């Protein structure tokens, strides 16, 4: 369980995240276009960024307090794995598997699917890095896994394989992940889904419901969610109406956001 209260995150003096309250109780998808603040929110949850105001509690622990327990959270954020000194991949696996008590054989067998050519993390392709860091995060002995765009930069087969892995791990852990595209929602139909635009979270809805919904202009009484983008109101509605856009057809939220804002 992750609880967010009155969260304000500012970077370079600009407000990037502004969330009144949200509770991420189960495995959750945060869906939004580029620049919506998804990664910053995840980094704040992991504790990389300190909020200007508000708090984030993971289970009963405040992320920014000293008594936060180890191995409660793991993440696939690349910078969490960039140890100084150009550490070779085998050593990197050894170090992180020892620290986070993951099964080295399982991790190695999953890495064999991409057969990385580079000697260290800096020499891997974007997709290889994403695969490696996500595999390490999922296999860590943690209760909550925070994944930033785990399905990005992977080829279609690896994306499907990764989606299977995430689903498998979500049975024993809470997984929170960000996505750009509604395309992958159908693989996670029972997950809670939040939409994120301009630093604000909207939700949650089950992915199944969101996938079957429509985006309509204006503020509607029957709206499942009311969203404000660029000063204008939009509604997520269940029934199709004239001009409403089926969300299952919106593969790229960034393009949609540009049209709306």
């Amino acid at each position, binding site marked *: 369980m992750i609880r967010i209260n009155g969260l304000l995150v500012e970077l370079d003096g600009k407000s990037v995240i502004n969330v009144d309250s949200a509770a991420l109780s189960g495995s959750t998808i945060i869906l939004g276009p580029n620049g919506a603040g998804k990664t910053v929110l995840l980094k704040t949850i992991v504790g990389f960024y300190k909020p200007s105001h508000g708090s984030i509690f993971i289970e009963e622990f405040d992320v920014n307090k000293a008594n936060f327990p180890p*191995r409660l959270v793991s993440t696939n954020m690349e910078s969490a794995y*960039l140890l*100084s000194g150009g550490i070779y991949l085998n050593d990197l696996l050894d*170090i992180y598997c020892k620290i986070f008590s993951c099964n080295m054989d399982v991790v190695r067998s999953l890495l064999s699917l991409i057969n990385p050519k580079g000697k260290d993390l800096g020499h891997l392709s974007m997709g290889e890095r994403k695969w490696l860091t996500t595999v390490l995060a999922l296999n860590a002995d943690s209760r909550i896994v925070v994944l930033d765009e785990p399905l990005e930069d992977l080829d279609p087969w690896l994306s499907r394989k990764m989606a299977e892995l995430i689903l498998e791990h979500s049975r024993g852990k809470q997984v929170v992940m960000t996505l750009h595209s509604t395309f992958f929602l159908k693989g996670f139909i029972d997950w809670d889904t939040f939409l994120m635009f301009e630093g604000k979270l909207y939700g949650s809805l089950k992915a199944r419901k969101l996938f079957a919904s429509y985006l309509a202009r204006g503020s509607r009484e029957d709206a499942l969610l009311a969203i404000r983008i660029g000063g204008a109101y939009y509604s997520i509605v269940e029934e199709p109406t004239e001009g409403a856009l089926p969300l299952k057809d919106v593969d790229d939220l960034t393009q949609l956001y540009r049209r709306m804002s």
Partner: protein
Amino acid sequence: MMVNGALKTYFARLVINSLKSPAWYAGGLGFMGGFMGLVGAYFAKVPFSFWFPMVYLMFAFSFAGGLARSMAIGAAAFYYITRHGGVKPISLVIALTGALLTVQLVFSPLFTGIIAAVYTMANKPVNVFNPLLLAASILLTAILMTTLSLTMGLLLTKKSILQFSNFIPMIPIIFYFISLAIPPSVQSYNPFSAILVLLSASLSASASSTEILTPILSVLLSSFAFMFVSVYLMRHLREVNIYDAVTSM
């Protein structure tokens, strides 16, 4: 136990990678040792006792600068393994300090040997009046530079200073020149000039034991202070995405 094993692996890999790094051989030994040795012996024609301490200090500062940048880049990973992995900040600081100290203690004698060899080739005297003090000075320099660079690297992660990532290696030497502005009456407590005093004292016959005690204490106390600050900073790390800035340049 597993966490200690991870730190041992990290320690070993840091040492091995640094010992295999071409930058150390080309920049540290080749340029700073070989070329600067040639400049001192053949062109500037200055005595070994004057040239060596100065060039060695530059060698140590270049190491500290590169290290500070490297620490800043690794800050997010340090945060992750200490905050979420259960690695104790003090254990990580000790592992990093130990590894980087080891590397300096391997390269420093090589560097010293190269400069001495160049001076010998040029038929210039290479007099070391107190080899023990020279060794101690090199050890103290390594301790000071390692702890300083660790502190600086971690300190720089506290603020978003992406634009300055390539400027970081110059900061130790800037520190040094700023420290020279300290009034002469308290200059003997400046750890940076203390290194020069100790190195020069080891190469000349004039230094007494009382003259070297203050510089030694100054370097040791500064190093301990830097180490404590490093542990504190390691507990309060934040990410600045400095790696992204570095790779995009």
